[in-house]
């Protein structure tokens, strides 16, 4: 096979920084490979992606050592527009990549810039639109499409330039589960044509393990592992420590090995291989093993109080007559930890905004601690309900973390020592007391998120709403959010989390509210909602295109072999598997 990318002794340093963002990287990538690029935030995934089409060093400057050649072109000797004929680069924010008025014009933009003939452009555009499944949407405004569709337009837009290499920098990190699936499916189809090489930086390791042919692990600017998926996740513990999520099935087999001494050779990395392995080893049985090891997080055992949120027959129309909520009834009790899940556009955020009064019901009622939100302002409600927005950049504006966290309590009229005490308490609750004097804009995304949460918590709300807290964060960041939920609950808060992360829901949430098309279609405990043995639940999961956690799916597949169908975590799975073997 032909070599398309070769990187020799590459090191790179951004201008006016002291640390090398990439250190001594050597890689060779061949035609037709589907390479997954994994690593925690800050490992250098984006930097490497930008080097491959010459944006680094051409647009960024900085110091580049070593040699990078893509399809025979040295990136430091050619400009990005030239390199872009060989390398198509797709970014994570779909909106920032769209600039035209229709899908067709958007896709044609790149090839037009190359100045090739009109007939050839139209041919490329048609091919690219077909390859990304966008047929029928050619005349639509790109910005009005769904997240997954927008990202597919962005992919089509670079495909139309006929590149040989497609580089995608976290293409799904701003998408809902449906959009994420769309992208992985589209990329798979593109790879299957055999004429492209794909390099994809991603946090969804379970999907990468399934689709990619090779996985390169980056950590602190260095390549720490490079090989087929089985190898990449072989040493789970190390991978996990780096801040990379290990596929759940792999984690389960590692636990079997470590806790119970059961080793079946290489840990499987996909659902299919795990199933094949266990279904061969275990005889069929009608027995159903259940686990005693259900996650028993401290807050789940706590006695719940009275209802603090009561939503009665809530309807909401956005201006322009979009019927966003269609008769919501919901009760949340004091101290509960509740997840709201569903695809984008199902009404999750609209519902949450009713609870702190940002939106007022068109019909029906929302009562927060007995207060009708229609009759009270957001300011008044902010004493009771804290709302942490998805993107911390929408909240932070002060020059120090202290001032940032003090902003809310100050609005409530707190001053002096009392104020100081509140801020310290909030910072300590999330373990960021040491950042008190830092400038929030100099912090990492994960730290900024914590500051944003602390700045809401310092107002002592009784209810905290977290909107997509894990968006754009790596595995380490997700674990930190779990800690935040625990800390909030320990401090007596009722917590509502809007999230797309089903394994997070299964492990840390007490109750799940599943929304679709402006309605709550079902609610219950995670082990009820994800129980695929129940026809009803399976139907709801299919209808909303949500997938149960990987170990839950595995134990469902193995239900003929003595597994209960509502396993929620790898730990639980390992325990049941072990008992089946004894």
């Amino acid at each position: 096979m032909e070599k398309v990318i070769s990187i020799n002794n590459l090191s790179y340093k951004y201008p006016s920084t002291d640390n090398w963002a990439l250190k001594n990287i050597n890689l060779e990538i061949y035609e037709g490979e589907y390479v997954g690029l994994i690593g925690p935030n800050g490992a250098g995934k984006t930097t490497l992606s930008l080097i491959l089409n010459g944006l680094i060093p051409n647009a960024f400057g900085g110091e580049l050592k070593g040699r990078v050649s893509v399809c025979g072109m040295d990136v430091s000797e050619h400009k990005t527009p030239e390199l872009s004929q060989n390398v198509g680069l797709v970014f994570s924010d779909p909106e920032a990549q769209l600039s035209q008025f229709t899908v067709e014009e958007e896709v044609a933009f790149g090839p037009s810039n190359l100045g090739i003939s009109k007939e050839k452009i139209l041919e490329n555009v048609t091919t690219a639109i077909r390859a990304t499944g966008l047929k029928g949407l050619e005349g639509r405004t790109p910005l009005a499409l769904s997240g997954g569709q927008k990202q597919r337009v962005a992919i089509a837009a670079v495909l139309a330039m006929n590149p040989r290499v497609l580089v995608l920098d976290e293409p799904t990190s701003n998408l809902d589960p449906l959009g994420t699936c769309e992208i992985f499916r589209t990329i798979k189809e593109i790879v299957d044509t055999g004429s492209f090489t794909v390099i994809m930086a991603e946090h969804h390791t379970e999907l990468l393990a399934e689709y990619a042919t090779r996985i390169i692990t980056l950590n602190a600017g260095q390549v720490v592992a490079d090989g087929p998926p089985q190898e990449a996740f072989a040493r789970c513990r190390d991978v996990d420590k780096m801040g990379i999520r290990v596929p759940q099935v792999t984690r389960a087999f590692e636990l079997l090995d470590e806790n119970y001494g059961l080793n079946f050779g290489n840990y499987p990395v996909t659902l299919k291989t795990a199933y094949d392995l266990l279904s061969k080893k275990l005889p069929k049985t009608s027995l159903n093993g259940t686990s005693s090891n259900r996650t028993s997080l401290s807050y789940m055992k706590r006695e719940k109080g009275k209802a603090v949120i009561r939503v009665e027959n809530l309807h909401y129309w956005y201006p322009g007559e979009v019927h966003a909520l269609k008769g919501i009834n919901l009760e949340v009790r004091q101290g509960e930890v509740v997840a709201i899940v569903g695809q984008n556009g199902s009404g999750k955020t609209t519902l949450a905004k009713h609870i702190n009064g940002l939106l007022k019901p068109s019909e029906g009622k929302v009562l927060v601690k007995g207060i009708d939100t229609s009759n009270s302002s957001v300011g008044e409600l902010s004493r009771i309900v804290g709302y942490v927005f998805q993107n911390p950049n929408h909240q932070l504006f002060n020059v120090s973390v202290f001032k940032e966290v003090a902003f809310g309590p100050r609005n409530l009229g707190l001053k002096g020592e009392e104020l100081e005490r509140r801020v310290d308490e909030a910072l300590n609750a999330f373990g960021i007391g040491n950042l008190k004097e830092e400038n929030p804009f100099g912090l990492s995304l994960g730290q900024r998120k914590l500051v944003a949460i602390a700045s809401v918590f310092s107002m002592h709300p009784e209810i905290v709403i977290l909107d997509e807290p894990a968006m754009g964060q790596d595995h380490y960041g997700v674990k930190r959010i779990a800690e935040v939920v625990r800390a909030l609950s320990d401090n007596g808060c009722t917590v509502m989390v809007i999230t797309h992360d089903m394994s997070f829901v299964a492990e840390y949430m007490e109750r799940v509210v599943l929304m679709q098309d402006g309605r709550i279609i079902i609610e219950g405990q995670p082990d009820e909602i994800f129980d695929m043995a129940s026809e009803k639940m399976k139907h709801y999961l299919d209808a909303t295109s949500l997938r149960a956690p990987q170990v839950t799916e595995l134990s469902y597949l193995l239900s003929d072999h003595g597994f209960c169908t509502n396993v929620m975590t790898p730990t639980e799975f390992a325990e049941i598997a072990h008992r089946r073997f004894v």
Partner: protein
Amino acid sequence: MSYEIDTMYRPGNSFFHRLDPRTKLAWTLGVMIFSFLLFDVKVLFLTFVVSFALLIWSTGRYALKSLISRVALLIAIPQIIVHGCLNAVGVTPVLFMGQIASIPFLGPLKWEGVLFGLTYALRVLGMAFTAVLFVATTHPRDLVKGFEKLGLPFKYGFMILMSLQLIPEAIREMQIILDAQQSRGMRIKSFLERMRGLLPVLIPITIGSMQRVQMMSMALEARAYGAPVQRTELRDFRLHKADKIMLCAVSIMIVIGIYLFLWKII
């Protein structure tokens, strides 16, 4: 939530919609020049009727719903009364049911003044309707492409179109930030509170826009924007038969206008 950019363009497939943007621009300029050259009630009544008819024909009810039309009406109609009462040309009083028509505070209406005001109003309305006709039947992209055909560098045209895209995006972002800060107890009821609320909203939006612009410029470069070759234009405009007829009409109109103006026939 609206993702469509709110311009004055009204999609359609009328005769005017199909014309080349350059033709439409020429027509618009032609009517303007014509209206400025001649200050005569009969001529301006004619331009008014023609431009209003064209607008109704091309955009239907939007003709009177457009903001420009409404502002123009608001300016034009009072002219009749103001000039009617106050303009010094007026001598003959207007009789209404045998009585001299008089406006409170302004005094009696006079024929010559009313005529002057009417002429003025017709000029304003004729030009306004023609302007609405232009923007309502030309997609902003075609408008810019038209200017590019006339020599505007692609870079500047692109910049104009990009900012059209960025404005609704920035407004949406601002709403989110406003919501986020209000959720932290920020009040925006009184003027003082609004002033105090400026920074918490402006800083995040400025930083956000800068990040977005950086992202966009990277994404554009990755799609060969600025490649040192001649761009291929997919939507190329050519002057069709209708365009040529319209351009002839515009030329004739201007020639007649200049002729009448120079020989002071009217």
